[in-house]
């Protein structure tokens, strides 16, 4: 079983600056971490590997520093990591991001066919949740989003049985392998990394690819150029009007609020 997990490096805090010229993120000075959902994705992949055997590969697109999150994944138990990094990937929206990741997955699968791709439900910075289903479409494999539990992985018959969260409960879905799933945080608790993994991670260097490593890639579909959406403008939402602060004793205030509610929302109180 070969599982590939897509992992993204994201800024740790809410203190993110926006470059006013390009309207893109300025990540300088903001500590970067592994997207929390992707930690759960790697953990789940490792658990599947422990059950049925195989190999867990992680893949990230980002700046050279994203090597750090790949190391973190090795700590959790991944076997190998790939980083695709190139200025020509920069400024990608979700369509261009899924195209870049697809090219890498396609190349990885040439040597080592992929049975399952796992993504996080969403990345805490861009927060769209659109990249996973996009990759699935490009690989022409079925996507199942919002997975909260893996019931069964059947390698010989090539299917997987999973629980998918919906608004008022969950669905039990059977999907052929290969497929792509995106996972919710509640799927597992990320366990503590055993010492040998930490040692391996410290020395680990991922395979690094640039655009030139992808044969036949269409450069026009990458990065800012390949992105149909652009951030038009960023603006601070209007501060709301201040509340009318009531006066008088607590008793008087409560009386006033109750009569206000009855006056403004009479339809709720059978009048």
């Amino acid at each position: 079983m070969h599982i590939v997990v897509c992992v993204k490096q994201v800024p740790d805090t809410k203190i993110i600056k926006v470059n006013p010229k390009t309207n893109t993120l300025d990540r300088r000075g903001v500590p970067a971490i592994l997207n929390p959902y992707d930690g759960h994705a790697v953990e789940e992949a490792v658990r599947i590997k422990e059950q049925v055997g195989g190999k867990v590969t992680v893949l990230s697109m980002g700046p050279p520093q994203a090597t750090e999150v790949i190391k973190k994944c090795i700590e959790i138990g991944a076997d190998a990591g790939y980083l695709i990094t190139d200025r020509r990937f920069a400024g990608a929206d979700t369509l261009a991001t899924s195209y870049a990741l697809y090219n890498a997955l396609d190349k990885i699968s040439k040597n080592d066919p992929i049975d399952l791709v796992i993504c996080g439900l969403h990345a805490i910075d861009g927060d769209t949740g659109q990249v996973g289903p996009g990759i699935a479409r490009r690989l022409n494999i079925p996507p199942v989003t919002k997975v909260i539990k893996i019931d069964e992985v059947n390698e010989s018959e090539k299917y997987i049985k999973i629980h998918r969260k919906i608004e008022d409960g969950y669905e039990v879905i059977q999907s052929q392998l290969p497929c792509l799933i995106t996972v919710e945080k509640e799927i597992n608790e990320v366990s503590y990394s055993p010492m040998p993994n930490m040692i391996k991670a410290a020395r680990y260097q991922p395979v690094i690819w640039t655009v030139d490593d992808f044969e036949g890639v269409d450069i026009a579909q990458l990065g800012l150029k390949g992105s149909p959406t652009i951030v038009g403008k960023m603006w601070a939402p209007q501060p709301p009007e201040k509340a009318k602060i009531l006066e008088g004793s607590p008793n008087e205030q409560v009386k006033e609020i109750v009569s206000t509610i009855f006056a403004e929302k009479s339809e709720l109180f059978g009048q």
Partner: protein
Amino acid sequence: MIEEYKGVWVFIEEREGEIAGVSLELLGAGRDLANKLEVPLAGFLLGNNIKGLANTCFEYGADEVYLIDDPILQNYRTEPFMHGASHLIRKYKPEIILYGATSNGKDLASAIATDISTGLTADTTMLDVDVEKRLFEASRPAFGGNIMATILCKKHRPQMATVRPKVMKALPPEKGRNGTVIEEKLGLEEKSLRTKVLEIVRDTTKKASLADAHIIVAGGKGMGDEKNFQLLYEFADVIGATVGGTRDVVEAGWLDHHLQIGQTGETVSPKIYFAFGISGAIQHVVGMKNSELIIAVNKDPNAAIFDASHYGIVGDAMEILPLLIQEFKAALEKSGGVMEHV
């Protein structure tokens, strides 16, 4: 040629034979965009035995309904839904498409965007259109709601967005309002499909949840402890409300996770929202600010929650709550004593 694309479409999400609330809200929002652009508003609907729902779409503002009715579409699955929807979009070329930012709406929109290679703006809360350029302006909160970003899709059509539930308003239904139904075939066979829905497990306790509540009584860390939360339940009982709270309260274990309101919880828009001992952090406020009438009780006169409320009481929640319970009981008795659960 992007000029070929005309009209505003809304994905009509169906659950157990009913149209999801968010789809009706989006017909309301879509109506506004379609009027500005002077084009028809359409709903598109995929499912099994769903033709009867077209009339509801007309009543809520649609001029046209595109539909595919096929047993394969009984339950939502990405691939057949994407296949059917992409076919409709390629053939009839709408310029704008709205989807509810629900489990299935987000899933479907993401797949379609890649399939037809166009832009998709996620989790929007404000929609507008530049009529002259026929450019859709979809805005979404970014970085925890501290900033709004307007996303544009200039060179690709359709221009698509998922929209958070409970942000837009449905129009009042107009009985007998009519429109055109355009039907297409799916053209897939079950045996060619790669996923199966084996079972759907619905949690009925969650159904009577925040999303449907007309009155919400929310508590924050200022309630002091779990025991004091009883006061909230008591008050909620008297006025027929549902209890919710902040993330900090959920993390403290005073409240179940599905009752969290805010950016990482539920978005709500009840008719009345009470906030007791809630500081008013932006991540909480984005989830409740669309409530019709917001009343906050906080002992700190400078608490940010007062900037997001209509009325404020500066005081101790544990003192105010018993008074409120007493006053409401008396007032309800006078007015006939019954709460109308509309």
